[in-house]
């Protein structure tokens, strides 16, 4: 039954997701940009800095947006990025 869903659901605040801890091994990056492009939450972007291989490794825009799907890890040809769950403090 199609009803227009315009409200922010009342329990939106209650759902908690684990926080991400993104690890970027900068000097291993060859700057292909796969992790940036295919991140479903657009957590990463190209940084200005130049690494040992003369490319711009990714940098984190907003770690809180990361949902730890780890697709960046899966499509990185250089084993240069991986994501862990932040050790759980209270509130998560």
């Amino acid at each position: 039954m199609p009803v227009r869903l315009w409200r922010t659901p009342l329990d939106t605040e209650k759902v908690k997701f684990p926080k991400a801890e993104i690890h970027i091994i900068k000097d291993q990056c060859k700057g292909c940009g796969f992790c940036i492009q295919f991140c479903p939450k657009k957590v990463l972007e190209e940084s200005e800095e130049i690494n040992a291989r003369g490319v711009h490794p990714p940098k984190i825009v907003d770690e809180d947006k990361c949902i730890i799907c780890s697709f960046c890890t899966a499509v990185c040809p250089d084993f240069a990025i991986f994501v862990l769950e932040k050790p759980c403090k209270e509130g998560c």
Partner: protein
Amino acid sequence: MVEEMAHPLSKFLREAMMPHIWCSGCGNGIILNCFVQAIDDLQMNLDKLVVVSGIGCIGRAAGYTNVNSFHTTHGRPIAFATGVKLANPELDVVIVSGDGDLFAIGGNHFIHAARRNIGVKVICANNFNYGMTGGQQGPTTPLEALTTTTPYGNIEHPFNLVHLAAASGATFVARWTTLHARRLTQSIVKLLQKEGFCFIEVVTPCPEIFGRHNKMRTGLEMMEWFKKASVVEHFSDPAKAEITSEKIVVGEFVDIEKPSYERLLHEKIAQINKKAGELVREYAS
């Protein structure tokens, strides 16, 4: 953000050989990534794992994997692996090599290994050309594609690798692109557990050598092409699963049960000589 932590998969790599030789935007690293991920998922006994490769960019993958590995001559990894698998059927023998190595110079070994159903597992990186030698036309180069040896456009019809594998008798045949990293890993996990000759084609970006001549200068552009063109059609007719600029049919095409050559061989040996050595036992049952 912490940096000094090691990558969870680095334990499967020969640190001494890192960084790998592959270009930025090349998909070979993803294939290696998915392969070791599958090994990790399966908690495989690394002592029993042998990785064999031929010549070409992806040929280096064998050396990069921190297990028993052998880097053979051009086109011969399957023949070499046949010797390994028959000599010790307990070993998991995986061939990681390229389309030119496996299907041009090595084509004969491929079809016969598939026909015999030798229990070796083949993961083929298809980058549409000879990358390491500078981007010459190869058995998978699409019609009209520009390469350093088809400056006026390729007039040879490319192989449909999954069709070839299925027709030759492989018990497991799949095709993914490097963008389908997760599914590729899942299929590799299957491939590693199956009996008989298994084959996975991985369509992989080669921007520096192939893409640049064909309007795809970066790995990203090639991956976007994969994204646009790929259609998952499991168990569809491999004969129809061609690769064109509009459509790349991916999925698992064949997954059948068939006794492997080594099983039949060692069952025979067992019949002929009950007392025969080591090799016999595990298959005699």
